[in-house]
């Protein structure tokens, strides 16, 4: 057998392996986008003279985590994270993470809604209201939504509803492959970073979203009153797309 014929025999299996890898990755990745919006400008140059390095770390951790869950994860900051861009993307997003300044902001309609500020690359940052997101998503199913802002999980938060996530904690009767995480009141960046890294790491280790939240809650926080909350399906694996139950989860 010649050298050429020897390699010919290897081509089909190698080709099939490559196609399998590329094809399956594309099939998984194309279906479930996740956007990671991070306001850096508000806490870094040009608005402050020095960098706040905690914020980019949260961005890197969130993007990597959504990718591990099977999403096509893209991160946006500066002029890529504007109110218009976020609202333009949101209808297609299965996963969503945002880190910014958050509050109950007064809307032009005279009512208050939970929201967060865009980045926009400058220091004049418009508010993205839950009302805006809800209108764009129009009840579309969400997977994991992590709103890393102050007040995002206060009792009256209007953001879960914008992502069609009911504010109920489901264990026995699952409410779908969805989970919303946010913070109560005012929280320090360093504590949020500890919480988020613990949460993403537990998820990466195969724990359910609820178990990951519980593990994250037991971090070494600088503030003894740190608090976060969640709504959704405790036992869900966090994997992108429709139902995927975690076999080993409680």
């Amino acid at each position: 057998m010649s050298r050429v014929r020897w390699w010919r025999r290897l081509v089909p299996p190698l080709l099939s392996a490559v196609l399998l890898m590329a094809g399956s990755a594309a099939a998984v990745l194309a279906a479930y986008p996740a956007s990671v919006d991070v306001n850096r400008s508000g806490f870094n140059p040009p608005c402050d003279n020095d960098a706040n390095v905690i914020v980019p770390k949260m961005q890197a951790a969130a993007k990597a985590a959504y990718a591990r869950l099977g999403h096509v994860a893209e991160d946006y900051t500066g002029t890529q994270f504007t109110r218009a861009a976020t609202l333009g993307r949101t209808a297609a997003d299965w996963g969503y993470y945002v880190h910014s300044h958050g509050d109950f902001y007064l809307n032009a309609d005279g009512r208050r809604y939970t929201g967060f500020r865009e980045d926009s690359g400058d220091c004049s940052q418009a508010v993205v209201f839950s009302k805006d997101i809800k209108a764009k998503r129009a009840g579309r199913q969400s997977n994991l939504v992590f709103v890393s802002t102050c007040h995002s999980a206060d009792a009256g938060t209007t953001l879960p509803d914008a992502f069609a996530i009911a504010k109920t904690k489901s264990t026995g009767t699952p409410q779908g492959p969805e989970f919303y995480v946010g913070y109560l009141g005012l929280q320090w960046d360093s504590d949020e970073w500890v919480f988020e890294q613990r949460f993403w790491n537990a998820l990466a280790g195969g724990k359910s979203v609820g178990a990951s939240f519980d593990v994250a809650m037991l971090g070494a926080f600088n503030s003894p009153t740190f608090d976060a909350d969640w709504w959704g399906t405790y036992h869900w694996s966090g994997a992108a797309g429709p139902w995927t139950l975690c076999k080993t989860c409680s």
Partner: protein
Amino acid sequence: MNRIKYLARVVPVIALAGIGLVAVGVPASQGGDAFVAGGRSTRPVVLPASAADQARARGRALATALGLPGISQRVARLDDRFDHRTYDEVTSLDAAGREVAIARFTTDGRVAMALVLGWHAAGRGAPIAESAAESRGLGFVRAAGLDAAGRAVVHESAGAGGWSVAWPRVVDGLPVRGDGVRVTLWADGAFHGLARAERPLAATPARPIAAGAARTLAEEWAARRFDGSAGGLRVTAVERAWVAPNDAFSPTGPDAPAETLRLAWVVRFEARGPLAERLRLVETWLDAGDGSLLGGDMVE
């Protein structure tokens, strides 16, 4: 020819195995390298059989003491590069093989964490009052073989499902931020979780700088950082505390809070006016000995 046939059969297998390895994510390196944001904090390390048996026994004893559910245990030793410690994680499983509780023990055998998994819906038992939460929490701390001293910080916690009761660590009258013992209780006072942190402290500076000097340094730092907006900041606290240095304001710092805590002057600013629209509070942490910047924090 036989060799060729063999290769033709194994190459796809190797290729597929490679895909599998890529899919599950093999650590790029092993050893004591630092945590990098975007990566995992923990990775399994070798646990000798005798140590696994010991951890399993500790897990069973703790389960009995705290009433943790589960009928069997799975044990792993994890190197946590974010928390800078190695611990044995004992995961309790129910009859169906589902995870129902987690306990972690530092390699000296002390409890680092205990957690009952799942959600404990309100209404199982009568809610307890704040005044009862501290004594209930203390009972669980002692049952876990730990102790708690000083004034407890008790607060109603949505994330805990009821109450959070913390005993922050205090050394020579100064708080050690992030360290101490914390218990989370369900609204009816049942056990939910427990965490203990006791990180190493650097030497106390022999000649600490005065509070006034620290405040001046912090105000100079704020003026540089916030430039024209610095007028919107007001100092609300100047206090000493042990802190884990971080890279909040220094791109060359570590991605995880530092392993060894340092004594710092913590100077807190509150934002007012237009600055408060994007930033609420800022802290700068200055080395209590030489005033150098150890890190800091923000509430956005």
